[in-house]
Each structure stands twice: as C-alpha cells, then as structure tokens.
C-alpha cells in the first residue's frame, strides 16, 4: 500500500506536468509579441479530473487488476470456429456470395452521398488488402505504402494528360508501374531487418512525395493535375455531353434521361469489381506455394532459410504484388477524383492504411474489410468530433497494440504448438 501511494503521487504529478503546460496555457500570437492565457475552467477541470483518476487508479491498482481479472476478455466465438473445415468453407462461400449480392443491390437504394462514401471505403479496402499482403502475410512493415498508391494515381493522370490514354488501358499500366517501383525499391532493401525496412520505406514514401511536389514541370507540383478523364463503359461516357470524339453517352444509349447519380453508381460498381477481383486473387495467392512461403517467412525467417527457401524472391514477390494493388487503387482514385496532388499521398495516409490492417487483424481479409469500413465510416458519423479524429486514431493504434495486437478478426489456421514453450 505504501509503495503504491508514493507511486500514485508520482504518476499523478507526471500527469499534471504532462497535461498542464500544453493544455492549460495557450499561446496567443498578437502582433510582434506573444503571450499566454489560461484555458477555460472546463479544461482546468479536465486536467484535475485526469490527475485524480490516475492517482486513484494507481493507488488502488491491485484491487483494480483483481477486478478486471473477473471480467472475461472479449471473445468472438460464435460457434463458427468449431465447425468442420468443409462446412466452414461452405458457410464462408455463402457468406461471401451474400455480401457481394448486397453490395451490388445496395447503391440503387441509398443516397448519392452514401454511394460516394462507399466508393471511398472500397478504395481503402483495396489498399488495405494490398498492404495486408506485405504486412500481414509476409510480415514486412511497409510505412511508405502510399508511395505506390501515388505512383498508380500519377501514372494514370500523366498518361491521360500527355498521351490521352483511357482508364481501361491505364489501369494495368498503373498496376505494372507500381509493381515496378515496388520491385526496384524492394530489390535492395529487403535484406534489411524489420524495423530498418520500415524506416527505409517511410523515407522512400517521402522521397516520392517530395519528387512529385518539386518536379513542377512534369507533375504540376503542389497544384497537382486536374481534369483527369473519368472511366467509360464500352465507350459510353457518363457526363451530360460527350467529351471525347467517338464516345457515346450512357443515358442516350440506354434511352433514359440524364442523371448525375449514374456516374456515381458506375464508379461504385467499378470499385466493387476491382475489390472482388483483389479479394479473389489474394485468396488464391495465399493458398499457392508463394502465399504459404510468405506466412512461413513471417513466422520464422531463419527456419525458412534453413529449409532452403529463397527469402529474397519470396519477400520481393510480396512487395511487388502488394504494390501492384496499390497501383490499381491509385489509378481508380485518380479517375474518381479527377484531380490529384501530392497532398493526398502523405505519411498519414500510409498510417491510416496500416491502421486498417492492424485493426482488422494482420493477415485476415475479412478483418481488413471490416476495419476499412469502420475507419472510413466512423469519422463520417462522428462529424462533431472531427478535430479529435486523428487524436483518437493515434490512441486507438496504441491501445490496439497493447490490448489485442492480433487485431479484431485475426486469421486463424490449424496449428500445433509445443506445450512447454514458455
């Protein structure tokens, strides 16, 4: 009790020091000089409350931990886990089918804003699934994933600007370009150890962004590239008038009156198709030898090497394929926005994608999809907390790592473990 008391006093003092100078005193810049003013009484009250909570929590820490031990840890056991593998696969297939069906019908029933948001969610799903290959399956922490997204987006924007290449032709090119960048970056850096790799990829992401920002003659620098062509459907455009010679208009061909919602729905369905393809391809990849090798490498690199697996090839394939999906997503993003600038490809974007993977459970596709929905929709719902969005976001990443590092829906597979491991 006594040691608890001194510790409680200490932590309470630390809490006060940490919160008071920054929260309680605000810098006010006026003219040439600067002054400070105290924040309102509410803030002072919050600081006091925080100090008190920390103090009492630390004082009665033993009792609290005893209390918490009785609360069962959240488990997501719905009886599904205990099913036979064959039945499980069946359930999964039906489930996937139902989700795709709902996703197909859904845009025709809701408002335009919701479809737009859903399209954004699908972009993040694609990015999350792509990064999931690199981080979740192969265990390579990539903090510069947004660079490949940028490469994809700029590939389409530049091709469309300079060579007038259509979306459908640019889509594979953007994927290949991003994959090429992934390959070029991956080739030298993949012999680095985990955390070094993270920092190098972060540096690479920044280099790409700085390049896009400064190569003004090519990319328009901070002004970005605007007026990027929207995708067409078999030569049918979704605008009110034909932009490009030889194209027809969707509503004219169909014989219906013009409605701007068609374009939004079309973009949504396009994103949905891309996501379904992504999910399918990755599901197949994971079951292929290369996918098995990724996971083996993540679990134990040294063991893999002793078994004669070529780690460079394995890592490189993960990196390249992951980058290719970012390229597709980037190409679609550019086509949807019609305008891109380096602003969209900052580190925070990488962090958001990483958070999606981490929150969903590394390696789990379903988890990543759910997390992408949560990460995109929740901030929209909580608009009044907009200013606290990133604060909560950072806090969530920390808490998630402390509380459930395996994510919400970790991918499970049958495994054996030595009993006397610990």
């Amino acid at each position: 009790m006594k040691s608890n008391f001194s510790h409680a006093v200490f932590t309470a003092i630390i809490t006060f020091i940490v919160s008071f100078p920054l929260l309680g005193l605000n810098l006010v810049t006026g003219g040439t000089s600067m002054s400070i003013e105290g924040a309102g009484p509410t803030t002072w009250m919050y600081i006091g409350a925080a100090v008190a909570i920390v103090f009492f929590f630390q004082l009665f820490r033993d009792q609290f931990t005893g209390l918490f031990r009785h609360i069962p840890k959240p488990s997501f056991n719905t009886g599904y886990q205990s099913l036979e593998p064959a039945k499980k696969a069946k359930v999964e297939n039906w489930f996937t089918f139902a989700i795709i069906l709902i996703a197909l019908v859904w845009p025709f029933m809701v408002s335009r804003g919701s479809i737009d948001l859903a399209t954004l969610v699908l972009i993040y799903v694609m990015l999350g699934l792509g990064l999931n290959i690199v981080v979740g399956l192969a265990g390579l922490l990539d903090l510069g994933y947004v660079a490949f997204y940028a490469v994809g987006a700029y590939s389409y924007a530049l091709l469309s600007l300079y060579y007038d290449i259509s979306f459908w032709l640019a889509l594979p090119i953007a994927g290949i370009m991003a994959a090429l960048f992934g390959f070029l970056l991956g080739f030298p850096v993949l012999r680095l150890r985990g955390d070094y790799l993270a920092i190098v990829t972060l540096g690479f992401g920044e280099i790409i962004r700085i390049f896009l920002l400064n190569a003004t003659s090519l990319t328009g620098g901070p002004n970005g590239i605007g007026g990027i062509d929207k995708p067409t459907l078999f030569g049918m455009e979704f605008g009110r008038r034909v932009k490009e010679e030889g194209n027809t208009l969707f509503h004219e061909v169909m014989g219906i009156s013009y409605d701007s919602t068609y374009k939004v729905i079309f973009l949504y369905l396009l994103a949905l198709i891309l996501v379904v393809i992504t999910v399918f391809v990755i599901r197949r990849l994971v079951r292929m030898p290369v996918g098995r090798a990724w996971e083996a490498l993540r679990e134990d690199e040294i063991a893999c090497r002793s078994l004669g697996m070529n780690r460079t090839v394995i890592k490189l394939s993960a990196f390249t394929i992951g980058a290719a999906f970012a390229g597709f997503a980037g190409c679609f993003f550019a086509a949807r926005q019609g305008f891109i600038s380096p602003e969209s490809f900052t580190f925070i974007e990488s962090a958001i994608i990483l958070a999606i993977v981490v929150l969903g459970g590394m390696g789990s596709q379903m988890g990543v999809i759910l997390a992408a929905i949560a990460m995109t929709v929740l901030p929209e719902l909580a608009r009044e907390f907009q200013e606290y969005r990133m604060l909560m976001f950072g806090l969530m990443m920390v808490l998630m790592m402390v509380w459930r590092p395996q994510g919400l829906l970790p991918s499970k597979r049958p495994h054996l473990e030595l009993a006397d491991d610990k």
Partner: protein
Amino acid sequence: MLEAFLYFIQQILNGLTIGSTYALIAIGYTMVYGIIGMINFAHGEVYMIGTYVSFVVIAGLTMLGIEYVPIIILAALTIAIIVSSSFGWAIERTAYRPLRGANRLIPLISAIGMSIFLQNFVVNAQGARDVAIPPMISGGWTFGTENFQASLSYMQLIIFIATFICMSALTLFISKSRMGRACRAVAEDIKMANLLGINTNRVISATFVIGASLAAVAGLLLGLYYGVANPHIGFIAGLKAFTAAVLGGIGSIPGAMLGGIILGLTESLTAAYISSEWKDAVSFSLLVLILLFKPTGLLGKQEVEKV
C-alpha cells in the same frame, strides 16, 4: 574566389548548427535502440513538445515583466526538460512497457500511434497554426569582403556550446556514473543485467528520460534559432534525427553525434549548391544508401542474428 570560399564557410557553419541539434535528438533514438532494440517513433514529438513548452515559458515570463534574457532561457530550459522528460517517461510506461518481449513490429506500430496521438494532442491544445516568438538573442560576428559576408550569430555559438556541454555531460554520465554503467550493462545483455541485480525497468525509464531531456534542449535551441514552431515539426525532425542515428551506427552514442553533424552538413550543402527543395529528399536518400551499403552505420557494431 574569396567570396565562394566565404559562402562555403557560411554553409559549413549553418550545417554544423543544424547538425548539432540533430545529434541531440539522435541520442534519444540511439540510446533507446541500444537498450531495448526498438525505434521510438514518438521521439520527434517529444522534441516538438520541448519547443512548445519553452515557447510557453518564454511568453509567460515576458508577460510577467522579466526581461533579463539568460534567466528566461534558463527557466525555459529547465521547464522544457522537466515536461519533456515526463512525456518520455509516460510514453515508455504506457505505450511500450506493456509490449516488451512482443514481436518487433508491435511496439513500432504502437510508437507510430503514439506519435500521431502526441502531434494531435498539441494540435488540439495549442492550435495547428505556426506560433512565433520574437528573436531573443540577436547579433553576431561577421567577417568577409564587401561583396559577401559570412556570419556566425551568437545564437549559433550558443547552440554549439550547449550541444558540446550536453554531449560531454552525457559521455561522462555514461562512462562514470553508476546509472551510466547500468545503462551499458543493460545494452550489452538485458537478461544478464537483470540477473545481476540491476533494475532494468528503471534503466529503461532513465534512457527515455535522458533522451527526452536532450530532445527538449534541442527543442529550445531550434525554437530560438528559427523563432517559429508548429505541431508538425516533430515528424520531419524525428526522421532526420533517426537518419543521423543510423548514419553514425544505431546504438552508438558517439555515432549519433557524428551522424548528426554529417547529416547537417549534407543538408546545408545540398540547400546551398543544389536546391533547398531537394534537401529532405537528399537526406532520406542518404538514409536509404547507408542502410543498403553499411547497415551498421559508421561506428556501429555488427549485430548477430540469434535463433
């Protein structure tokens, strides 16, 4: 000819100024890495908090009518160190300690989360816009011809001296004091140190506190040097300091000092002779190149991977 030389000298001086502050921040990365083998991604934010706290103190004391500059700066230094090291301690306690022994990537992700949290904590507390203080220390020596004059401002001199004092004190602390010896022992082998009765948790906390204090010193110095700050300065400064730590060999304290100076010089020379827009790209490329060709850095030790 003389002008070109003076211009060069000026760039060297500027580079050394920035480089010594990078070195101060880099110490925090390198010590933490040396002891628990993790990249404390939130360290750059501690530096940013140091700058903010010293601005608050400077503004507060100026409001109270105290005008004697050394007192203001000493007070700002003391309080910035206290607050920053509290942050360092609290970060380790809440975000890293529960994760000790987990997979390497898990604390790193937690650190990224912490970094985002702290950045937005300051955004919410103090606003996202730039804050500026009036110059406190002006003047300096100039030398050169009529066409071009190189200058060494008093502020730059103070940065050199402060960095030198901090580095000497740290070196003495690490090599002579009891805690310093414990730090070295823990860096060598944490399990063995624990067996020998060293309180490793305390040593790790101390490492964070020392790193954060040095970051606070750098925060005050750079805050005075530039006169402006915003909540986002920590990210790029942290990345640069990490580059410096890697350049010198992560885990090695003299390496961090050397790395900081080299990085500062590279940056100011790039800005002067190539283009200031590309200086960040050049320093990140430097990071990539070093990790490729000499992952152990200039003064680092080869790390053997154990099963």
